[in-house]
């Protein structure tokens, strides 16, 4: 028999571990559950998120830890469907251009695009990793939407004058909001492709992004279709564990 989504959720809800204590093998406590069950949501209902709920999520970001309490972040909340669609269109056009220049499989430039891609991958190994490279193709072909149809988007900006490593602080702040949003029944997805807004003046001017601010990440926010949250398997990572004067590998 197949459980309905609500039944399954109720079953999950009764078995929480206690907060602020630990004994071996205990149930996941609510915070752990939110962390472990959070999945990136890529299909949203059209229903808008209440304003107060977004404000509450932003509060979680405001109280994130930061180096020297510098709080090097600024948020832009966009809830205008027309504007979001325009942004999506802009990114799709940029991706088409990138695909035209770099995708050696389909580009009419032939060998030249192969050469260009090899140069640009070496210049930007993170941005042009095979995974985002594939995403560029998907966005260009209209198979992947920038904000996945989310009704609310939070853009996270970084103040470049932050203490020590403001990039890390912005990441911590964003994850605070993402976890809070999931615990409140929302779905979220980190959108790194907002990077492309930096390669033109149109959106930077319209959104008022200028020095010392730098657009870092977008967070799509909305009610998920179905029940995408849940625990899944992930790769184990090798951990170097130093104790009693020697090192061992722990997984």
């Amino acid at each position, binding site marked *: 028999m*197949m*459980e309905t*989504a609500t039944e*399954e959720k109720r079953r999950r809800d009764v078995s929480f571990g206690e907060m602020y204590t630990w004994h*071996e*093998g*205990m*149930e*996941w406590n609510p915070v752990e559950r939110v962390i*472990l069950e959070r*999945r*990136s*949501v*890529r*299909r949203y209902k059209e229903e808008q998120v209440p304003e107060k709920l977004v404000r509450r999520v932003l509060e979680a970001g405001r109280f994130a830890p930061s180096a020297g309490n510098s709080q090097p972040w600024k948020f832009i909340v966009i809830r205008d469907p027309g504007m979001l669609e325009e942004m999506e269109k802009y990114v799709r056009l940029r991706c088409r251009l990138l695909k035209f220049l770099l995708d050696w*499989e389909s580009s009419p430039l032939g060998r030249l695009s192969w050469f260009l891609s*090899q140069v640009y*991958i*070496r210049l930007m*190994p993170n941005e042009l*990793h*095979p*995974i985002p*490279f*594939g*995403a560029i*193709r*998907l966005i260009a072909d209209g*198979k*992947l939407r920038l904000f996945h149809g989310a009704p609310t988007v939070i853009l996270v900006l970084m103040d470049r004058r932050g203490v020590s490593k403001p990039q890390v602080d912005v990441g911590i702040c964003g994850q605070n909001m993402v976890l809070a949003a999931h615990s409140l029944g929302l779905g979220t997805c980190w959108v790194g492709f907002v990077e492309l807004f930096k390669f033109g003046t149109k959106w930077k001017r319209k959104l008022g992004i200028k020095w010392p601010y730098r657009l870092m990440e977008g967070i799509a926010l909305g009610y998920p*279709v*179905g*029940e*995408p*949250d*849940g*625990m*899944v*398997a*992930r*790769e*184990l*990572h*090798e951990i170097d564990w130093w104790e009693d004067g020697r090192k061992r590998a722990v*997984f």
Partner: protein
Amino acid sequence: MGYLTFRERMTIPTYNDPEACRVGKVVIDHEKCNGCGNCALICPGACLYVAGIGKDRKAYMIERMVPDCMSCNDCAAICRRGAIKAAHGYDFGGFYKVLHRAEMVPPRNF
């Protein structure tokens, strides 16, 4: 010495070369799959599709040389029947060689 050789570090893999890259992969249990299509809707790499009619309606993985699967397991999370899961993570080799990883395991409550 070193877990990423200089040669590997200098090699950018050809993304669409199956010899050089191990891309993500999902396995679908067609006994359990009822073809609801949720996985195909949410797949960030658009590498799942649903085909067939009636009882034969099942999810499949696209047969491109390099699917954009990143083994994120979002499909496993949304599947209410436990019919789909990632088989292994991706490893593009060369400069992008994946280091210090082992098999995929669900969260362990120590």
